[in-house]
């Protein structure tokens, strides 16, 4: 079945909904989402959204932009970072006007709190920049945007999973989609398609990401010849609950929480004398792992799963209940402890993809290092790479990225869809996807997808994790290739056509395997340490050879790497100390 729209948005997290809100003002818009919109992962974001409002102390967008560039270890495109910081202020007021209940100062203004890597006057000390709605900021943003989209009568197709992209040369004309309820294939033809499918932390064993974060958008694009940018940069968040990976927001440290080793020492004093526990995430995560390796973890056995303590006991029950209610709940539910009485056992957890589908400042997808644009194809949010996060994202900058660049992409689409010629697609556009699905469901015997998922996640966690080296990454590439071979024979056990979640999970596994391969290959090729990419065999940053974005092309069974310049037009790269 073919559906005709002017604009199709894939994903209904913060980025997709904001884009839909803008695009629908001027074009006939559909939003496809494999989850119900308000169930999207944006709802999990706890800590806040940054903007230099200066409500509680002096702050400037320029400082915010600089922090973003430095936090990203100078791999950030600097004009894009300035846009992010400048448009942040209007974005927060827009959300407020639409009814988002932010926390307030005693005078009734929007309250702001500290977050890692956000500083005053180019690094002098921490600044209060994160606006928040208790620890439910993402949930509130999602609700607010969804209410607005419903008001604008955007058409929602919930539980529709995109499996392929229709491209003719460098022009996009739609997507191929499976409907979960019936198992039927649909074609959505559109002049403009925007991917906002979120992250892909499910590549890793221990992650803060939900099951749906399987990187479908980037994987579908990669299989259609679009490169993925900076895939080697994946953020590990310092404070996941030990063993589970569930996130304890940085807001706990923002409110004064302290990391301690087995001797009760505040070890961040040694690694980051100025910012201490609020240093950027890559630095804190590495420091933690170094402590564990030195036998200073709580057990002290130097094992990879040893852990540290996040101490919030001195904050008092009152502050915890008022400012971090969900986190107190988490600790009680998952650990049976009250953070007001006991320290929280934590360990870094795979959290955020800095890399993704390359775009310009309007969300238009770029095909190569010459800046060739794919007409009608857009991306925004975590699945995209503008790049404002470079080699390491600062906390609260992701929600900001969603609203600023989701909005910009939506506005551009509204213009584009009006002017562009109509597109024509016929049923044959779904042929490849149909063959693939028929094969997976042909009822023959095949290996179990679950084991492949397990092996992939373990390999990625152990060999392409926080610390990396040539030997292990090469092993990872080989192992992932091997898993991709085995994957070809995987079959679904459940062959029913209604609500066949088994089938969709196998499709998602295929996506994760492709992204794992691109990640490992990109990481292997970058022979330096920068931001979240930290190599034991090349411990220094190497601006002469590697101050450049990687572009990884998936070509059948191999990965071809190319590189693209970084925009350093405002601040000259400097060593990064905190």
């Amino acid at each position, binding site marked *: 079945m073919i559906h005709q729209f002017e604009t199709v948005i894939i994903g209904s997290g913060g980025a997709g909904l904001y884009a839909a809100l803008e695009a629908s003002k001027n074009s006939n818009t559909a939003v496809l989402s494999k989850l*119900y919109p308000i169930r999207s992962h944006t709802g999990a974001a706890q800590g806040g959204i940054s903007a230099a409002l200066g409500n509680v102390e002096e702050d400037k967008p320029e400082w915010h932009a600089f922090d973003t560039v430095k936090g990203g270890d100078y791999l950030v495109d600097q004009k894009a970072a300035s846009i992010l910081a400048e448009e942040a202020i209007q974005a927060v007021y827009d959300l407020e006007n639409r009814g988002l209940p932010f926390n307030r100062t005693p005078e009734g203004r929007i309250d702001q709190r500290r977050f890692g890597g956000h500083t005053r006057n180019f690094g002098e000390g921490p600044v209060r920049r994160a606006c928040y709605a208790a620890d439910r900021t993402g949930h509130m943003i999602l609700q607010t945007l969804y209410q607005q989209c419903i008001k604008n009568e955007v058409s929602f197709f919930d539980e529709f999973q995109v499996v392929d992209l229709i491209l003719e040369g460098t022009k996009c004309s739609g997507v191929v989609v499976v409907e979960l309820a019936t198992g039927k294939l649909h074609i959505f033809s559109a002049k403009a398609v925007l991917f906002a499918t979120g992250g892909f932390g499910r590549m890793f064993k221990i992650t803060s990401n*939900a099951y749906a974060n399987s990187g479908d958008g980037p994987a579908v694009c990669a299989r259609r010849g679009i490169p993925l940018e900076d895939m080697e940069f994946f953020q590990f968040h310092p404070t996941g609950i030990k063993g589970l990976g569930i996130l304890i927001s940085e807001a706990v440290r923002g409110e004064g929480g302290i990391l301690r080793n087995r001797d009760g020492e505040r070890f961040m004093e040694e690694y980051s004398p100025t910012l201490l526990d609020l240093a950027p995430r890559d630095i804190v995560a590495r420091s933690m792992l170094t402590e564990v390796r030195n036998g200073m973890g709580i057990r002290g056995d130097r094992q990879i799963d040893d852990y540290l303590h996040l101490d919030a006991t001195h904050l008092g029950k009152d502050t915890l209940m008022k400012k971090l209610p969900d986190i107190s709940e988490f600790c009680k539910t998952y650990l049976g402890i009250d953070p007001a009485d006991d320290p929280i056992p934590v360990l870094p957890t795979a959290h955020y993809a800095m890399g993704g589908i390359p775009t310009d400042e309007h969300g238009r997808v770029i095909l190569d290092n010459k800046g060739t644009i794919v007409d009608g194809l857009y991306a925004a949010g975590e699945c995209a790479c503008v790049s404002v996060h470079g080699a390491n994202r600062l906390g609260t900058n992701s929600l900001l990225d969603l609203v600023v660049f989701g909005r910009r992409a939506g506005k551009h689409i509204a213009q584009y869809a009006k002017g562009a010629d109509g597109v024509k697609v016929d049923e044959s556009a779904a042929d490849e996807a149909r063959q693939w699905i028929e094969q997976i469901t042909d009822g023959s015997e095949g290996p179990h997808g*679950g084991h492949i998922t397990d092996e992939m996640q373990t390999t990625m966690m152990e060999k392409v994790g926080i610390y990396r080296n040539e030997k292990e990454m090469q092993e990872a590439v080989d192992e992932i290739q091997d898993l991709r071979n085995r994957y070809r024979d995987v079959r679904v056990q459940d062959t029913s056509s209604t609500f066949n979640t088994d089938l969709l999970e196998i499709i998602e596994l295929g996506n994760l395997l492709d992204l794992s391969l691109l990640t490992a290959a990109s990481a292997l090729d970058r022979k330096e340490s920068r931001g979240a990419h930290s190599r034991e065999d090349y411990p220094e940053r190497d601006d002469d050879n590697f101050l450049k974005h990687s572009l990884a092309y998936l070509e059948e069974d191999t990965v071809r790497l190319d590189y693209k310049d970084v925009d350093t037009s405002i601040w000259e790269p400097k060593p990064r100390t905190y």
Partner: protein
Amino acid sequence: MSNIDLTLQIWRQKNSDALGKLETYTLDKISTDMSFLEMLDVLNEKLTMEGIEPVAFDHDCREGICGMCGAVINGVAHGPEKETTLCQLHMRHFKTGDVLVIEPFRSRAFPIKKDLVVDRSAFDKIIQAGGYVSVNTGGTPDGNAIPISSHIAELAMDAAACIGCGACVASCPNGAAMLFTSAKISQLCLLPQGHAERKKRALSMVETMDKEGFGNCTNLRECEAVCPKSISIRNIARLNREFVRAAFSEG
């Protein structure tokens, strides 16, 4: 850590038109460290091996945030643990020999799609009827925006904590959606941004609630008891006030 053996009686229904019934399965050596959904994963793996269709159930974040999961366990929505979603329920609350009856969130307004999966889109219809701010009430941003006292902001925020899981509807003997609707109305009517449209909002959201097949509230308070986000029924009182005020002034 210990292991327990369980008997499960689970509602199986092929699709919204088919007739459903409870099927019995046994499951041995379930670690008490597992979450309830992990226990269902184990069951599904076992069923798949035996050539039986796995049990369909909704989930995503598995950390109590997204509102996807939900089932009625031995008559209680989201199970016996207070203030948690089903995904946050742990098997340590059960013991060997327990029989668990697992049913979908039932209500006239939530048709069953398959097994434990229900269609909660009626909630969207309620939001659509007015659960948003459409008039731009903010002035030019001057660093102050709209001043709101922190007490009011907190009340609005508590109401906005609703994740739309539908446990309130499933637990209500009348199948009312009052807690859900009142949470949405409270959030907006408490904030100055939401004042302009408050009358129209209250009337049309309540009207839609009735139209979608939700029942009436008779103050049984079952909803508050199962709500994973502890939304207070004081919000219902606020909704009633809003509604009465709107109804009278609209004439």
